[in-house]
């Protein structure tokens, strides 16, 4: 780890004041500390925000406001999240281990970085995320875990979060703060596709602090399904977050997001457009999944993900429109 300064922020305005150039915000540390130890992240200073904005409150429009410092376990276990947003509890509980969920904050979860093995291999592999223009050894390497949607010739890494996939399907809004003021960003717009600058992973400005995540009222039924190589403590090969409201056999509203397939949580708007207003049923589900995956591109080892994503999408839609359990 390279030498650094550490300061604990008293509140959000103190945090953005302290976060000059070269500083990073520190949440639970579960990703950033590891990256610093590998010298992939070399911040000059850490501003500890893990004690700020801890808690969950109801909003005036029957939604929830989740403070950015709220631990993953606390979100998943909160009675209102379990009752109204089971998809969020399910997604969080499908990720990491209990110890890590006890440490990791909501804001940090969103800003965690890819687990691409070539990104982590500082001394042995080329990576455009670490050094723009260096090249990407994953392209011709072992890319079984890599992206099938929205990738570029510069980067095929995937975003590792489960929670963010559920939040993308919930139309969550990220509240942020800088020294100039506050703004709100739809979660689905927070993360960037890699393009030729895979080192820039979000639309956040330098020093911009995530202060909260706002959830609008939920749809009637929702679920999160994660497919992985082992049944616990593994990142997703493919995951699907789905929420739906059905009335008189027709889909009144639907929201779908895919995880493990792209540089960001992948909101499946093509599939949604096929489904919205139409009838429930196998034909519609398959057509929707095909519409979304028609833009998928296979690399040498990850072609299986396209069919896996298609089938998981259909399975989630079947589950959501079947008889209530």
């Amino acid at each position, binding site marked *: 780890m390279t030498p650094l300064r550490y300061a604990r922020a008293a509140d959000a305005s103190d945090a953005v004041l302290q976060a000059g150039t070269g500083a990073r915000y520190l949440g639970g540390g579960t990703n950033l500390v590891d990256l610093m130890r590998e010298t992939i992240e070399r911040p000059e200073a850490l501003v500890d925000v893990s004690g700020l904005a801890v808690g969950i409150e109801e909003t005036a429009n029957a939604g929830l406001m989740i403070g950015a410092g709220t631990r993953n376990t606390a979100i998943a276990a909160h009675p209102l999240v379990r009752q109204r947003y089971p998809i969020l509890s399910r997604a969080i509980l499908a990720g990491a*281990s209990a110890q*890590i969920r006890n440490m990791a904050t909501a804001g940090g979860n969103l800003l965690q970085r890819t687990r691409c093995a070539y990104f982590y291999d500082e001394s042995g592999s080329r990576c455009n995320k670490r050094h723009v223009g260096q090249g990407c050894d994953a392209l011709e390497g072992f890319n079984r875990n890599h992206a099938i949607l929205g990738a570029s010739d510069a980067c095929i890494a995937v975003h590792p979060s489960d929670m963010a996939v559920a939040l993308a399907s919930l139309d969550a809004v990220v509240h942020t703060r800088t020294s100039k003021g506050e703004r709100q960003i739809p979660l689905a717009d927070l993360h960037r596709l890699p393009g030729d600058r895979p080192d820039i992973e979000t639309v956040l400005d330098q020093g911009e602090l995530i202060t909260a995540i706002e959830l609008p009222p939920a749809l009637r039924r929702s679920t999160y399904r994660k497919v992985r190589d082992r049944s616990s403590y593994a990142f997703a090969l493919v995951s699907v977050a789905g929420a739906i409201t059905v009335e008189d056999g027709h889909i009144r509203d639907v929201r779908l997001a895919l995880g493990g397939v792209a540089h960001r949580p992948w909101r499946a708007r093509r599939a949604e457009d096929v489904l919205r207003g139409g009838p429930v049923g196998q034909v519609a589900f398959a057509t929707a999944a095909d519409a979304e995956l028609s833009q998928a591109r296979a690399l040498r080892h990850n072609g299986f993900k396209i069919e896996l994503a298609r089938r998981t999408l259909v399975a989630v839609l079947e589950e959501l429109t079947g008889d209530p359990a």
Partner: protein
Amino acid sequence: MSILVNGAPAELPFDPRVSLLDFLRDRLHLHGTKKGCDQGACGACTVLADGERILSCLALAVQYDGRSIVTIEGVGSATDLHSLQQAFIEHDGFQCGYCTPGQICSAIGMADELQRGVPSHVTDDLDAPTMPFSAEEVRERMSGNLCRCGAHNGIIDAIAATFAPSPMPETEAAQ
């Protein structure tokens, strides 16, 4: 800056790069907490922070200013074993023993989470006020602690024998 470790106050390191794990082992000479992977994958470094299980390898010591840490040395001693430590012996919950301090601290934290009704990935009913104590639940909830000797069945049995409100099916403890 100070921290409580097993009830005793200690001065935190000046260098913020020191992990909680290295602080415990190298500065306080508490060698019970083990360094396995040092990257958050194995759970050998699990300790309790204000009663919650965390990975000390991914924690910077300075972040835990003012907090209370319990390590395996604070759980029990050779002459005064915690009931879970005794159960690990009786149920063959280890071979080499390297993961054991982390397993035991993790299981203590897990039992508290169950008591508080924290759900898991395998919990069927998220609205249930109390969580079932089943082998499936314990396996899922302990998945962050790896044992390369393969003592997991004994570990599950030891945890069940110590914390299960009634005997669990599918385990030695139920027989």
